[in-house]
């Protein structure tokens, strides 16, 4: 029973990390129906930026995270304007091939600059070790992770549900043509949302070095997880991907803890079953 709570806790921490990284993909897939397999590359950019900021320039961990966000968002907006937006109307096959190509380029560039090995991360003193809660030890960093993501989720919810920009996003998701007819600049909304999503992925990449690791194959290694969060959660909501990411995180951690001999099998099986049961996602409006 004790281990169960620990697994649940680790799973939730893992799931919230997946959520931060994947929420941007949910927008790309949902808003413009773009199958972007290269989303993990933005998370990797964030990861490397925070590592470089910390080790080369001595910037503290908490200050490096906003840098990760900004760098990934900037990269996102550049790529969106130059490459992605040319392919919005292309077939899914073209989008898949294009984004696989981008993944390969990202892996090659990262290997070229940083080498193929795992990057170390030095967490600040107060995030290391365990915190005693009700007689049970919880990893301080995991608590920090969950708290950060909780704050981010509330902020995102506010942004989408309560602001004019959020209304524009929701309108464009529901019907891009009608939204454009109402005077919403759908292209600009998408570029900004893409940047926001990439930035969040970058932030997640920076946050996740300690949990997910960071090496050049990162975009390929976690591609399935990000896609899965979106495919299972459905697009166009925050709740769907959040629930999906938490389910995924808990099952993955539990699977690796209780049936280590099955390895990644549990998560792939879960994925196929969930996709068959909910072809449109748990809360999806459209597939």
């Amino acid at each position, binding site marked *: 029973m004790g281990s169960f709570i620990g697994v649940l806790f680790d799973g939730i921490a893992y799931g919230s990390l997946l959520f931060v990284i994947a929420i941007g993909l949910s927008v790309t897939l949902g808003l413009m129906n773009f*199958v972007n397999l290269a989303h993990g590359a933005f998370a990797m950019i964030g990861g490397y930026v925070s590592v470089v900021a910390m080790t080369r320039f001595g910037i503290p961990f908490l200050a490096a995270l906003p840098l990760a966000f900004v760098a990934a968002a900037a990269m996102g907006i550049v790529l969106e304007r130059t490459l992605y937006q040319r392919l919005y109307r292309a077939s899914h096959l073209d989008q898949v091939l294009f984004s696989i*190509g981008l993944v390969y380029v990202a892996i090659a560039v990262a290997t070229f600059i940083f080498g193929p090995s795992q990057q170390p991360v030095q967490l600040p003193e107060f995030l290391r070790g365990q915190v005693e809660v009700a007689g049970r030890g919880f990893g301080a960093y995991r608590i920090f992770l969950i708290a950060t993501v909780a704050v981010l989720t509330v902020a995102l919810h506010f942004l989408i549900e309560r602001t004019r920009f959020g209304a524009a996003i929701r309108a464009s998701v529901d019907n891009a043509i009608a939204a454009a007819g109402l005077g919403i600049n759908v292209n600009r909304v998408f570029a900004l949302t893409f940047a926001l999503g990439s930035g969040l992925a970058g932030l997640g990449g920076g946050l996740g070095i300690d949990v997910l690791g960071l090496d050049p194959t990162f975009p390929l290694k976690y591609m399935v997880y990000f896609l899965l969060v979106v495919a299972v959660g459905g697009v166009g909501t925050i709740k769907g991907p959040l629930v999906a990411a938490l389910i995924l995180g808990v099952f993955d951690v539990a699977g690796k803890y209780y049936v280590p001999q099955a390895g990644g099998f549990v998560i792939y099986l879960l994925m196929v079953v969930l996709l068959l049961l909910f072809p449109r996602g748990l809360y999806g409006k459209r597939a």
Partner: protein
Amino acid sequence: MKTTAAPAVRPARLPDGRWRPLEIAFWLVPVVAFFLLPDYRVLGSQILIVGLFALSLDLILGYAGIVSLGHAAFFGIGAYTAGLLAVHGWGEPITGLIAAAATAAVAGYLVSLLVVRGTDLTRLMVTLGIGLMLWEAANKAAAITGGVDGLSGVAMGKVLGLWSFDISGRTAYVYSLVVVFLLFVLARRIVASPLGLSLRGIREGALRMPAIGSPVPRRLRTIFTVAAAIAGVAGALLAQTTQFVGIDTLGFPRSAELLVMLVLGGAGRLYGGLVGAALFLIAQDYLSGLSPVYWQLGIGLLLIAVVLFAHGGILGGLAKVYARLRRPTR
């Protein structure tokens, strides 16, 4: 007064089974290469095998329009079937191929039940998930499959009891060429058949095909199963000719590279897969010796360039040039 001559509109022809001179020339290339380039027979049989694998993907992707990210699953199933049979004493190659085709076909049929239902994204995810699941299964069942070390000790018998696989790759080359050619003829026949035509119809407009009485899910299941069987044969050929099965036969990179080859050569064209595989493997042979990092960067940039600028791949481009030359000059 002369009536203006109507431009000679040729009626859209149904595909006939006639072999065109260019096709015959194409198939003479590997035969000539066998005699002229004896040092490259090992690479040559690799190209033939991977070309067959790309052809099988072309049937579902190029013709039926199903995007699969896990086609290597069937290649791997075929490879492990043939490899395991040989390891456990059944080294006869032809029956090994048949067994591999049958196993892969069964797997393909089961997967097709899941694949035909979904949208593009679901299909992509399901094929990807099944591919990863099989990789993980082969990885964890190391007692049977050898895990990441691969399955070694594949002892092959003689082909038809006459030719044994030798170190120079002579038998392997001829054996691969004959099998690949036979399956190519089969695929060529399928593509020209009513089934092939209805697949193209489904690719162009899946919603309209039921209106002309075409059972869409059944057609897709059929071609998916056939493609899986052919991929299984390709995998088995690789296992038999190299006498080894690596776990990378099941890996995602193999599925992704396959997509690259097919698109590079030209999807939706029978020869696209073969041409793409040849170019890809020859380039890999030259370039990855320099540095694997540059190779990866190269594929990535190439893919992006093909998608953005070179639709239809190499054969598509050639067809455009050819069509322009054929246009009557006034």
